[in-house]
């Protein structure tokens, strides 16, 4: 069956450390993968997009990797801060190259303690 898996358990990280979140998928061949941040009571906010031919993408303290062989994306936040605490969602285009339907994972809740 097709699915996207993110660690359902909350991730607790000490401030200043690097937080790493995982997104695994099966039976999809996405052309790209996206990461979103969602705060309580709000809609998701787009953070980064990585294409299938890109191994790594960076934006400020954020880094995303995409391994199409392992069918996995890793999302890193370096020098984490309490303000980074939120739920992080990965999403992909299930049929490759189409934006008409994006499939979201259930998200991982990240908590950064001072």
């Amino acid at each position, binding site marked *: 069956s097709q699915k996207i898996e993110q660690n359902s358990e909350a991730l607790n990280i000490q401030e200043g450390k690097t937080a790493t979140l995982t997104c695994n998928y099966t039976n999809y061949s996405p052309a*790209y993968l996206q990461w979103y941040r969602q705060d309580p009571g709000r809609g998701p906010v787009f953070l980064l997009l990585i294409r299938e031919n890109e191994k790594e993408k960076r934006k400020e303290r954020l880094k995303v990797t995409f391994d199409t062989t392992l069918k996995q994306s890793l999302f890193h936040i370096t020098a984490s801060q309490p303000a980074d605490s939120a739920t992080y969602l990965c999403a992909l285009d299930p049929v490759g190259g189409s934006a008409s339907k994006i499939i979201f994972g259930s998200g991982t809740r990240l908590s950064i303690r001072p």
Partner: protein
Amino acid sequence: GAGVSQSPSNKVTEKGKDVELRCDPISGHTALYWYRQRLGQGLEFLIYFQGNSAPDKSGLPSDRFSAERTGESVSTLTIQRTQQEDSAVYLCASSPVGASSSTDTQYFGPGTRLTVL
């Protein structure tokens, strides 16, 4: 407006009643999406509009759910004869281009929290 807006922000209704949820996308955005998010769950795709047409309705869970979009702007999601399992946050998103761009980014509204008693 500056972003996607949705109304109402909260809706409490009785089982069996009909509800209408509204989405105002970012001006000029061609594509519009509706999602459902149950408590602690991921986003569940419902329907996608390209302009005023809906090329993908595959996510609508039953014939009690319908949506329309007019003037390539406002969209309404209607749920008829609501059931308790319809309780969720309903999120709307818009994007500039839609399916013609494989990497189009979606901009989300704050959602409508629907509670069916």
